[in-house]
């Protein structure tokens, strides 16, 4: 009897107590490769619930949900992965496929040239790299400022001045990009509809007029939160309030 319990323990509880995130990752990808998407998704969720995250984990979880035909959760996790790793081609591909299964046709708002340029710039590196870059540029700026100040010779002074200015500009740009990405990641300013259909009302109350209906997997911009209600925006015309329970912030 005791033997039975001993043997059944590792099998039964398994990841319950040996839950190092790396073990969980391994068992999740094994489950996924065997087609046990339910188990894989549970493991990835545990990793996330332990407070860890990475674009790969979100991506894999999105895949598992896609295979389980849970398009809403799939889109949500792909979007989260994309937020952390905007350049990843695989994420874009799978997100596009998942979006093909959604019901609502949502035209992305056209972007200005500068906006697009800025987004591209942001997506090149993570906020960490941009932050480090901004610090390094700032240090170089200080160095050349020092050269400019201490040098007795005219040519050295000129050299120090221009390079110092250049690195100063670099530093400011990098800082801004890093801050912008940081804001993107930390600000909950977009959300995915998770309920199969969600009514968008004109006021944050059940009595509000029904404006339009969105379906599972639709991505919206979240503007503000008022108790149980979140103000969402599709385009500048399609703005309304939706129940917090039917959406999940990216």
């Amino acid at each position: 009897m005791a033997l039975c319990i001993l043997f059944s323990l590792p099998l039964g509880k398994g990841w319950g107590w040996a839950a190092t995130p790396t073990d969980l990752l391994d068992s999740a990808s094994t489950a996924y490769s065997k087609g046990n998407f339910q188990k894989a998704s549970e493991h990835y969720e545990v990793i996330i619930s332990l407070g860890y995250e990475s674009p790969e984990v979100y991506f894999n979880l999105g895949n598992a949900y896609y295979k389980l035909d849970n398009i809403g959760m799939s889109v949500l996790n792909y979007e989260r992965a994309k937020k952390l790793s905007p350049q990843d081609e695989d994420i874009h591909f799978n997100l596009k496929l998942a979006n093909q299964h959604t019901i609502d046709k949502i035209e992305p708002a056209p972007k200005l040239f500068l906006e697009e340029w800025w987004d591209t710039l942001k997506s090149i590196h993570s906020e960490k790299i941009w932050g480090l870059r901004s610090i390094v540029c700032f240090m170089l700026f200080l160095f050349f400022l020092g050269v400019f100040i201490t040098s007795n010779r005219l040519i050295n002074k000129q050299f120090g001045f221009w390079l110092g200015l250049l690195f100063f500009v670099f530093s400011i740009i990098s800082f801004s990009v890093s801050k912008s990405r940081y804001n993107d990641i930390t600000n909950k300013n977009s959300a995915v509809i998770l309920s199969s259909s969600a009514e968008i009302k004109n006021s944050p109350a059940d009595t509000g007029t029904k404006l339009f209906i969105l379906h599972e997997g639709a991505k919206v911009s979240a503007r503000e939160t008022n108790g149980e209600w979140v103000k969402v925006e599709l385009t500048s015309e399609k703005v309304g309030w939706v129940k917090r329970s039917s959406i999940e912030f990216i």
Partner: protein
Amino acid sequence: MKKNNIYKLMFRKVILFYFFLAVLFSLPLGKGWGWTSSYAQKFTASVNKNKVAVGEVFQLDFTINASGKSFTPPSFSDFTLYSGPNQSSSMQIINGSMSQSITLSYYVAAKKEGTFTINSASITVGNNTLQSNAITIEAVKGGNTQQAQTQSQGGTQDKNSGKASSENLFAKTSVSKSKVYAGEQIVITHKVYTRMNLKGFQDVKFPSYNGFWAQELGRNTQYEVNTENVDGVSYNVVEIKKAFLFAQRSGKIQIEPMEVECVVREKSGKRKDPFEQFFGHDPFFGFDSYKDVLYSVKSNAINIEVVPLPEANKPADFPGAVGNFSMNATIDKDKVKANEGINLKITISGKGNLKLIDAPKMTFPDEIETYDPKTNENISANQSGVSGSKTFEYLLIPRHEGVYTIPAWNFNYFDAEKKMYVALPSKEFTITVEKGESNSTSSPVISSVAKEDVKMIGSDIRYIKTGNINLDKRGEYFFNSPIFISGFAVPPLLFLAFLFLRREHIRRNSDIVLVKKRNASRVAKKQLVQAEKSMKNSDKENFFINILSALYNYTEHKMNISTAEHSKEKVIYELKEKNVSEETINELVKLLDECEFARYAPASQSGNLEEVYSRAENIITKIEDVV
């Protein structure tokens, strides 16, 4: 007496003649059983019913189709003999040959219930003694004999469904085989047996033969009446339908019963209306009236067990043919121009389920365009079965010149009698195709290797990422982290500190220089005073040492040169930097050289000490003016 005999004979002959006529007219409907044309001597016994009630009188006939003698009747111990033997004879001429028959009739009735056998009678014909068949009679308990019960007006038809005695009128469905292979031929016959005056049929419902392909046997418009002996009772039999069935699936298949309404002419009772007696519709036999009664009869259902064709040795391209066939294949021409059509005709002929044969699967060269074959059937049925032919016509259009071969193929069928598959080989056809007229619609002869896009066969999400995955604690970002903030805070502080320290250093450094500079001439003067003392004491060595140190210390302090890097060259370089005139520098160098020399030289060569002193004083003053 003799004359009398002749008259008697003649009278007999006349009677016979009339009888003969009556028989001829009544033949199609009447009692055709009396005149089977056969040269064989036949001695048969028959009864008009073999299921009787006790006491019911029935007729027992013994018929011989030749003249015989010493007839020995069976014993009638179980029966009461009412009358007989009554002899009657008949003659028939068919196709010029005459046959006659003599019938001896008894009228008997069963004495008690039970099943009795009337044993065979015997008769001698020539040298042979013939035995008649034995007849089984079933006697049931009294009750009324089955008679038509309608008493309606003559000439009208009555529905009297199901009331005719099953002994007098019944339908029967029979098949040639009840266990067959799928596709094997079965003969099904629907017959009506009667001992009544059957006039015709109405509303015949044949079974639908579900699960079979049926080919009906063509039939004359008039029904043929034959005689059949069933359990010793003679019946008039009408074959309503004969068909050939071919099972299309295996398993147990039931053929539902046939239903038919028979019109029977029956004698009705005596007429009460005297007018009708005189002006009835039947003036010749006008004392009796007739009426047509409808009887509905239903045949038996038939169960057929259909066995699938054996799988062993079954050819892969078996077209479903069962029977016995032959094949003939022809092409209309074997030499054509490109884009001209050729007809390949495959004819399957023989007996069997022709209708169910699929087109043979042909393999044609790729360069020949083919279309689905045109199928022609010529199927007919006769007494022996279904036969005919089925033709498959393929239109072949070769697109390019060349010599092509249509390979030989096999037509396979299953021979149900031999229970084996038979393959009929065809011959091989060779087609020569010449260059046709250039046709813009024909595909280009020169084939180019066309590059194809890689086609996406399916679309699915990309696979999960498995490599090294760095797990970060959520909510920990570099931006806004202490390291990040210190990255911006610490370097400027360090920078400012550096600047401050540097300025301090410079300031302190510049103070020392100023002091030294200020003190330079004062120090130099002190040493010059020392040199003056030595000069007065004539201490030449100390004098020069004092002069040298005065000059060196002065330049050191004045130019802010450390003692370590002090050298004549450094001094000259620094003086030049300070824009001291070449002349003064040269004077200084010269004086320093002289002093160095004189310090170690003998006293005689020392020269004028006072002059050296004034020169040193002079140089210091000059440098002091400039720097």
